[in-house]
């Protein structure tokens, strides 16, 4: 009993300290539920700090958390560090070779005006003693986290050869229970779940958020008029437009990769079919024509076709078609339920929800070999969404009777959950790269 009380107290303290640190940070915890043994060894020295408050350490914590979350790095604990350098000149490389830190990150933050900071960092190769890369930023204090994510992206790309996706955003729906019933919040946050902003609140369901390719707009489905309709909302000022309010269902919006078109689902002609709306001319073209359910359109990254879910074989399976609706071909044959497809930016992988043993899990298909790999084994996984670099998949799942967001690496090796303290969270959508 005593021990469990101690544990509860410890958990409470962690939550409280989070609250004190920053209200925005208190809403979620990130838990790595499955990790890897072998990552690229890296030591991140807390940045030196000259200014009003102590933020140097929190910035390096963001970088550390980003790289660890990717599952491709092995961050060396600070307790092992033999010195605390803040630029390349101060580094005694033998101290870092001793603790097998192949790569070293050093940096500094200096206040250079009211609320303006100068951030410098360098990435060093410990064995050659060379500086691999280094940058300097001048930023407002509220952008320090974003700069930390940009630094993570640079380190990630320099050491893995692939573009990082830390300086991106996620959109999702949070459901709160209120006295007036359920309340739905469409929210956007940094890729690690921090700094959430509510862009729409409604007492009717919200679902199916889809990012524009420039990451400046979201299309989504709202039931605010007591049935499903599609809206496109600009993030900068919240201005929005109702783009589909036909008779019946209006749902599953998906921007084309060039941003000029919106694929969506409508039952205006009596059956759920996939249509494409030209956002400039407002012309609407029907792509599917089948008495089965056709839904969940998602564009191929080259814009030359779409994948979608169809019940035409008697159960949901995944199909591909050209942008004019021609050339329909079935992609999935194994299992009785494969749905909600989307293709990675390199066009190589397709992620979907598959049913097996009564469970709905995230699975990826290699589009060349058609080989399917199950990434999760939870009961009710939904809404998988690739990071723009295709290395991670964000999805919704249930944990302790609550909706949570989770992420898994596309090879299934690393898994983590983003747990929000308030409400049920669902329907995540990972943004494209921010420009």
């Amino acid at each position, binding site marked *: 009993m005593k021990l469990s009380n101690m544990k509860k107290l410890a958990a409470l303290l962690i939550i409280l300290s989070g609250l004190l640190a920053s209200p925005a940070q208190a809403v979620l915890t990130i838990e790595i539920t499955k990790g890897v043994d072998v990552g690229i060894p890296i030591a991140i020295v807390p940045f030196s700090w000259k200014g009003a408050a102590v933020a140097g350490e929190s910035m390096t914590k963001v970088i550390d958390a980003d790289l660890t979350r990717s599952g491709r790095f092995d961050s060396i604990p600070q307790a092992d560090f033999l010195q605390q350098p803040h630029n390349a000149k101060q580094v005694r490389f033998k101290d870092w070779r001793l603790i097998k830190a192949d790569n070293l990150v050093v940096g500094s933050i200096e206040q250079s005006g009211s609320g303006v900071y100068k951030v410098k960092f360098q990435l060093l190769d410990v064995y050659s003693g060379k500086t691999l890369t280094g940058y300097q930023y001048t930023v407002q204090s509220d952008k320090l986290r974003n700069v930390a994510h940009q630094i993570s992206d640079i380190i990630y790309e320099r050491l893995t050869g692939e573009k990082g996706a830390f300086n991106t955003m996620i959109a999702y729906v949070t459901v709160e229970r209120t006295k007036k019933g359920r309340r739905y919040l469409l929210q956007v946050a940094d890729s690690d779940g921090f700094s959430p902003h509510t862009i729409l609140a409604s007492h009717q369901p919200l679902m199916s958020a889809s990012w524009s390719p420039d990451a400046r707009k979201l299309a989504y489905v709202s039931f605010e008029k007591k049935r499903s309709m599609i809206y496109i909302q600009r993030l900068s000022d919240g201005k929005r437009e109702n783009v589909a309010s036909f008779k019946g269902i209006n749902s599953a919006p998906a921007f084309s990769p060039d941003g000029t078109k919106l694929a969506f689902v409508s039952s205006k002609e009596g059956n759920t079919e996939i249509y494409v709306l030209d956002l400039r001319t407002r012309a609407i073209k029907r792509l599917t024509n089948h008495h089965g*359910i056709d839904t969940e359109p998602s564009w191929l990254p080259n814009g030359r076709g779409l994948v979608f879910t169809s019940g035409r074989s008697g159960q949901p399976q995944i199909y591909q078609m050209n942008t004019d609706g021609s050339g329909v071909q079935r992609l999935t044959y194994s299992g009785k339920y494969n749905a909600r497809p989307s293709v990675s930016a390199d066009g190589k992988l397709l992620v979907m929800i598959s049913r097996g043993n009564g469970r709905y899990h995230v699975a990826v298909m290699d589009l060349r070999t058609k080989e399917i790999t199950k990434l999760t084994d939870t009961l009710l996984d939904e809404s998988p969404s690739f990071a723009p670099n295709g290395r991670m998949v964000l999805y919704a799942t249930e944990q302790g009777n609550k909706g949570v967001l989770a992420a898994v690496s596309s090879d299934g090796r690393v898994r983590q959950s983003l747990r929000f303290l308030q409400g049920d969270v669902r329907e995540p959508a990972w943004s494209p790269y921010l420009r």
Partner: protein
Amino acid sequence: MNNTSKLFLIALLAGMVAVSGCNKKTRKAEGADMGDGVSTSGTGTEFGPDGKPLGEWQSGSADMLSQTRIYFAYDSSDLDVDSQAIAEAHAAYLRDNPSTRVVLEGHADERGTREYNLALGERRAQAVIDVFIALGANPANIENVSYGEENPVAEGHDESAWSLNRRVEIRYDR
């Protein structure tokens, strides 16, 4: 449903109205099983969906009219025999009250993807609407609204909750 079975059902409904009351007890029991929270009528005055007392000849179908939820099997929009009977009772009511408007709200359980379930909810509502129209209800007065899995009535993650959530709700405009 093919045309032959539709004709059969019309005949069945006509017979049902004629011998009113004979299927009263079975419907009542199932209403309770389904846990839809609607109490069926006793011996007092019975009211139709419009809130007005029902005429004597209609009292047999009143129990069925008080059932405003129709349940479905997993990933199915087929009506079973019991659901068919409920739908037919409402169809007859709509046919006899041609100015009454009704919204058919389709729902799904939480399993599977949200968008597919939205389409499934609409199919379920449409299956009920097909019965209404086949039996003479005015299509202009019927609206199909799907909520997919977004508005569950039971919150659990097991079959007992799922079976309650796979439903069509018949909502009359008052």
